[in-house]
């Protein structure tokens, strides 16, 4: 099985789907000839032709509107939004249209579209190349939101998203494209080479939407994370010395509530970790659900470790970014109580 970084795994997923399903096509800003600013669509136009993979005008609303129309016709478009920060001009299309087509038309029309977008921080991208907008999608009825944390999942989840008949926002943690990153920014860069999660089969396979992965088993606390934060969490758990169970949610809608609840009932403690700013973030929903369903098992308050309630601040990336030390502290606090 070849080792792939996340960019290669995603590229592979697209390649497989283009070859397999003539209804799949790919477009976005710079995704055609150039192959995307992060190279995820590299080589696909050359291999599959201009009709299957092409460039779009700089118009995120137009890109999603076009994709919805294609989806309504019967195609399975995969649109790339260059940075998740730039999904916002298309937010109305996603919410008022893509997410609502099936419901309001009583099943006459639907939007089997996938919207891929690099998200998250850790690359010194500043305010508008670093944000994590997952919470505003999670609240939208009719929209699925998927976030892989490694190459194997990235390929399998992306194929599942494309094959899904509902609109999927597929957020790619850009800090993980070239290697796992545990938040220790002062250490040497790691690549995916040698990581078992980077062994990616050549062929078609799926990782089902809505199934979390238990990344590490543990007895004393549960850590909920997704995307880059899965790696940060692993480092933070190690640093804390707490025997914590680490759950990689993989998709936040649909959410694997069973795995979460079973774990917290077992451990009695829960820490939620995400990059997005804390207030109103997806951690709130997770905390609410956990305390609703595990109240009598909880030994200490559910903690949220997250970005501060400020815009993403360029020079203060590592002050803002919720790294392993902050998670370790939260775990320690849980254990003390």
């Amino acid at each position: 099985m070849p080792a792939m970084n996340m960019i290669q795994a995603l590229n592979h997923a697209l390649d497989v789907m283009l070859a397999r399903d003539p209804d799949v096509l790919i477009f976005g800003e710079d995704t055609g000839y150039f192959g995307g600013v992060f190279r995820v669509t590299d080589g696909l136009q050359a291999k599959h032709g201009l009709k299957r993979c092409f460039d779009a005008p700089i118009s995120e609303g137009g890109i999603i509107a076009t994709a919805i129309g294609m989806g309504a016709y019967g195609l399975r478009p995969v649109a790339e939004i260059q940075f998740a920060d730039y999904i916002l001009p298309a937010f109305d299309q996603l919410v008022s249209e893509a997410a609502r087509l099936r419901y309001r038309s009583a099943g006459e029309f639907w939007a089997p579209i996938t919207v891929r977008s690099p998200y998250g921080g850790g690359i010194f991208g500043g305010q508008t190349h670093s944000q994590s907008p997952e919470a505003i999608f999670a609240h939208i009825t009719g929209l699925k939101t998927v976030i892989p944390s490694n190459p194997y999942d990235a390929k399998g989840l992306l194929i599942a998203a494309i094959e899904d008949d509902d609109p999927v926002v597929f957020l790619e943690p850009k800090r993980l494209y070239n290697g796992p990153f545990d938040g220790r920014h002062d250490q040497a860069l790691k690549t995916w080479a040698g990581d078992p999660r980077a062994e990616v089969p050549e062929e078609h396979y799926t990782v089902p939407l809505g199934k979390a992965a238990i990344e590490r088993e543990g007895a004393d606390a549960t850590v909920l994370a997704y995307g880059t934060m899965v790696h940060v969490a692993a480092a933070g758990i190690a640093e804390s010395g707490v025997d914590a169970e680490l759950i990689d949610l993989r998709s936040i809608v649909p959410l694997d509530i069973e795995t979460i609840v079973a774990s917290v009932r077992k451990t009695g403690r829960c820490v939620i970790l995400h990059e997005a700013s804390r207030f109103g973030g997806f951690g709130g929903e997770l905390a609410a659900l956990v305390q609703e369903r595990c109240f009598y098992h909880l030994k200490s308050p559910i903690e949220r470790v997250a970005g501060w309630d400020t815009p993403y601040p360029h020079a203060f990336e590592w002050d803002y970014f919720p790294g392993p030390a902050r998670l370790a502290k939260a775990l320690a606090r849980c254990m003390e109580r």
Partner: protein
Amino acid sequence: MRDLPFGLVRVLDEAGQAVGPWNPRLEADTLREGLRAMLLTRAFDERLFRSHRQGKTSFYMKSTGEEAIGVAQSMMLGREDMCFPTYRVMGWLHARGYPLIDMVNQIFSNANDPLKGRQLPILFSARDYGFYTLSGNVGSRFGHAVGWAMASAYRGDDKIALAYIGEGTTAEGDFHEALTFAAVYRAPAVLCVTNNQWAISSYSGIAGGEETTFAAKAIAYGLPGLRVDGNDFLAVWAATEWAAERARSNLGTTLIELFTYRASGHSTSDDPTKYRPADEAAHWPLGDPVERLKGHMIALGEWDEARHAALIETLDTQVREAVKTGEAVGTLGKSKPSVAEMFEGVFKEPDWRVVEQRRELGI
């Protein structure tokens, strides 16, 4: 071509004759069918508007004065083509024989509502009739038409898309984005601005209509733009035929401004006397489209007052019967689809949230 957007395509002259190069030379049967569908649209509007006053529905919107548009374009285009409507082209459905009772049930939100009680009255969806799902948001489907048309071209099909947008709504970014994509990808689409001169209480100048025509916006995209008398059934037909032909020959998109007039209020929530002269409607600048087509047919010797009166009578009876049947099923609040329908169709397969919530509600 750069001057087309500043003219006005007309066929019917003041004397009711079809004149000029745009005359589509339609068969008399086609004219009669068009007149029937326009009159049906009007009859339906009148009666259902009254149903609202009687509390039988939460909402209604009329197409009065604009019936030629939806009807002519619906008749002209093929069954496989798709229209991306606004709420003011119900004539499209009437021209294609969409069952009146289905419309009534939707408007009454009753147990037989084809949209399962999920959507506001008249925001229909009728795939088999080439009518894309409407929504309350104005403008946001304009670009879907372009994507749909691109998909048709991609598959090598010869279906085309036709989309409508109100002149007021051309101010939305959606309009510009749709036209940009249409031009860049040469989408087989016909994009129409229905300029009825009003957007609720705002006259067309608030959308830039005093600075230039809406058809002139085509120039920004290097597309042909036609400005058409939207109250002239024959002109609408001819312009649509021209644009459809272009689209089907892979020459790309045409923008058509359909110059018309909103003779009624914006919706049942609106009182137009608050913002425009009460008698403005009486001076329809382009005349009543129904009267104009009727006059033409009479001039041709293909129609007369007696047949006209009889047709109105027949249509009104059809509408009344549909309304009665719908009322028997139930009107707003008196009948509705199974509450389970509230939870269906959020996703293709329900997830645990709606499953649990359905259980919580005991259904």
